[in-house]
Structures are given as structure tokens and as C-alpha cells.
């Protein structure tokens, strides 16, 4: 079951939780590749112990670079049909991924984006919501897509689309770049509601809203 799905998990200093995250995910999806982005803790070993394939960047390159590495690893697996981008900090849930897979298969979609804003299960702060809304507005404006949440780390991408992606934004702007590249392809995509768990752990590690400024700068100056 789900043998044709590969979870791509960018990993950077998440030793505390990655073992549990991988073990839990593998109950549903046996194929997990963790791309260790030059962590200085024991995260890679914990991920490997939990049964993930670990690809290790020799130096820290950024989350976008880690995703692209994960994609290229997944493409070396001939039986891979779907790639799921999945966060290492336990924010994402496999039940959401199952729903996305079902939707993709039922509606013949090549890409399913997770969205926090299709229902009200996700509890984001007011300011965070505002910034995310503005971010998705900018993305929609510049990529001819119609999404409600462009900066969600949970995505389901079919093999044929993964083959055509090339993330060059190593750091945070990769989410917009992904949407842009997918928007430029002639394929069917949709969004699916997901529930992001903002745990104390993920909140403490989470992105500062200041990053919105950095992302914008990276997108404009390319």
C-alpha cells in the first residue's frame, strides 16, 4: 500500500522530533527520504534509525535545495509515482496526505497543494494569516495561478511533474518558485484542505514573519 509514494522531508537540526515523525509517517507511507541539510545534531542518524533513506548535503544549502535533492533522489526510484513534500517538525499529518492522494486519483490531478485556508482547522495567528494572504496574493498575481495558500509545505506532486521541476531558490523563496513552475506547466492541479499543527516545538522553530521581506527580495532580484 502506498509503495509508489515517496515522502521528501528536508531536515535541518530537528533531531528532537525527526525520529518520531519518520516512524509515524512510515506507518502509512513506507518510503521516506530525509534530505539532511548539513544538520549539526544527530537528526540524520535518528531519521535513518527510523527507517528513512538519508541523503546528506555536505554543507547547509537551504530548504529549497534540500527539496530539489529529494526530488532527484526520488526520481532514481523507478516505482515512484508520487512525491509528497513533508515537513520534519511534525506539523503535517499523513491523514491529509491520504486525502490528497485520493483527490488526485479521483480527479486525475498531477499536483495537489495543501491549503490551510480551505477550512478553519488550522489555528494561525492574525498577523501570520495576514502575511500569508499577502504572500498568496503576490504569488497569484505573478504566476497566473489561483491558490488560497501558496506557502504550505505539504504538496503532492506526480512523477511527470517532478521530472520537470528545478528549484533554484535555495532558501525560502522556493515555495513561490514551485508554484510558478507548476503554474507554467500544462497540467491539472488543485488544493486540498490540510490541518497544520502549530505545536510549541514548531512555533519555536518556525519562520519569522520577517522572512516575508527576504522572500520578496529573493523573488524580485533573480
Amino acid at each position, binding site marked *: 500500500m502506498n*509503495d509508489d509514494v515517496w515522502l521528501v522531508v528536508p531536515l535541518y537540526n530537528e533531531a528532537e522530533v525527526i525520529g518520531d515523525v519518520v516512524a509515524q509517517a512510515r506507518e502509512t507511507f*513506507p*518510503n521516506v527520504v530525509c*534530505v539532511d541539510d548539513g544538520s549539526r545534531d544527530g537528526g540524520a542518524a535518528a531519521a*535513518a534509525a527510523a*527507517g*528513512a*533513506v*538519508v*541523503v*546528506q*548535503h*555536505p*554543507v547547509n*544549502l537551504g530548504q529549497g*535545495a534540500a527539496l*530539489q*535533492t529529494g526530488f*532527484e*533522489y526520488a526520481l*532514481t*526510484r*523507478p516505482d515512484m509515482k508520487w512525491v509528497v513534500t513533508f515537513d520534519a517538525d511534525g506539523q503535517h499529518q499523513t491523514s491529509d496526505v491520504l486525502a490528497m492522494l485520493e483527490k488526485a486519483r479521483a480527479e486525475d490531478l498531477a499536483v495537489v497543494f495543501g491549503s490551510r485556508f480551505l477550512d478553519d482547522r488550522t489555528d494561525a495567528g492574525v498577523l501570520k494569516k495576514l502575511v500569508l494572504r499577502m504572500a498568496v496574493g503576490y504569488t497569484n498575481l505573478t504566476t497566473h495561478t489561483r491558490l488560497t495558500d501558496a506557502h504550505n509545505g505539504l504538496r503532492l506532486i506526480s512523477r511527470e511533474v517532478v*521530472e520537470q521541476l*528545478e528549484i*533554484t531558490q*535555495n532558501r525560502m523563496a522556493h515555495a513561490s518558485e514551485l508554484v510558478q513552475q507548476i503554474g507554467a506547466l500544462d497540467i491539472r492541479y488543485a488544493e486540498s484542505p490540510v490541518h497544520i499543527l502549530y505545536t510549541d516545538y514548531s512555533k519555536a522553530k518556525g519562520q519569522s514573519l520577517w522572512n516575508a521581506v527576504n522572500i520578496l527580495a529573493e523573488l524580485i*532580484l*533573480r
Partner: protein
Amino acid sequence: MNIVLIQVLLIVVVVVVAARLFRSRGARSQAVRRLGLMLFAAFAVVSILFPNLWNRMAAVAGVRRGTDLVLYALVVAFLSFTVTTYLRFRDFEARYTRLARRLALDEVRAESTPSQTGPTSSPTAGTTASPTVPPRRDEGSNAGGDAPPATEQA
């Protein structure tokens, strides 16, 4: 024309900096850069010897003083330097990323040869850590000729 000490100092500095910058790489962009640099250095020397030149140019451009014109020119030069440096860094980073990625993926491929982690060994895993690497699309499409964007300095 009597040469002041500051003029001698400035000319030495300009010449040394220009000479240092001369030793960089790239074919046509390099030639353009060198020509521009030579002009720039020559003009710097001339304007050090004849400071009044800037005043006359300022008058033509509608600026009150020559020093103001120099300041404006510097602002523009600095901004363009910042942008070209940023873009060059991006280009450099892209190559460096490709290198690191290749290393990481090759390492996994070598490890998985005697069937280690993962459900099944990959099809390339039959050969013992050989240098046979399946074609990867990010090279080829992007390797080779793309030199950093032609840089015009200052």
C-alpha cells in the same frame, strides 16, 4: 601644473586597484570589463590631475558643484556594484549547490550498493559503486556555457 601629494596618492591607489581587478576570469565579458576599467582608470587619473573637469561637467549636467556630481556617480556605481555582486553570488551559489547535490546523491548511491536501507535497492545498484551515473537533467541543460552575467563594473 603643480602636483599635490594627495594627487600622487590617489593615482597610485587607482592604478593598483585597476591592476588587481585585471586579474579575473571570463572571455568576452572580461574584455569588456577590462576596457571599461581602463577607461575608468584613465578618467580617474585625468580628474585627479584636473579637478576642475568635474566642475565643468557638473555645469553641463546642471549640478552646482563637481563634488556633488562625483557623489551622484558614486551612488550609481555603488548600487550597480551591489546588484552585479549579488547576481554573481547567486550564480556561484547555483553551481556550488549542484556540486553539493551531486556529492550527496552519489554518496547514497554508493551506500545502497550492498543493499543497506530502503525497501529495495535501486537498479543502478547492481554495479559496485562504479562511476556509471545516470544522466541527470540539471547538468547538460544548465552546465557549460552560462558564464556569470556580463559584468560591467562601476
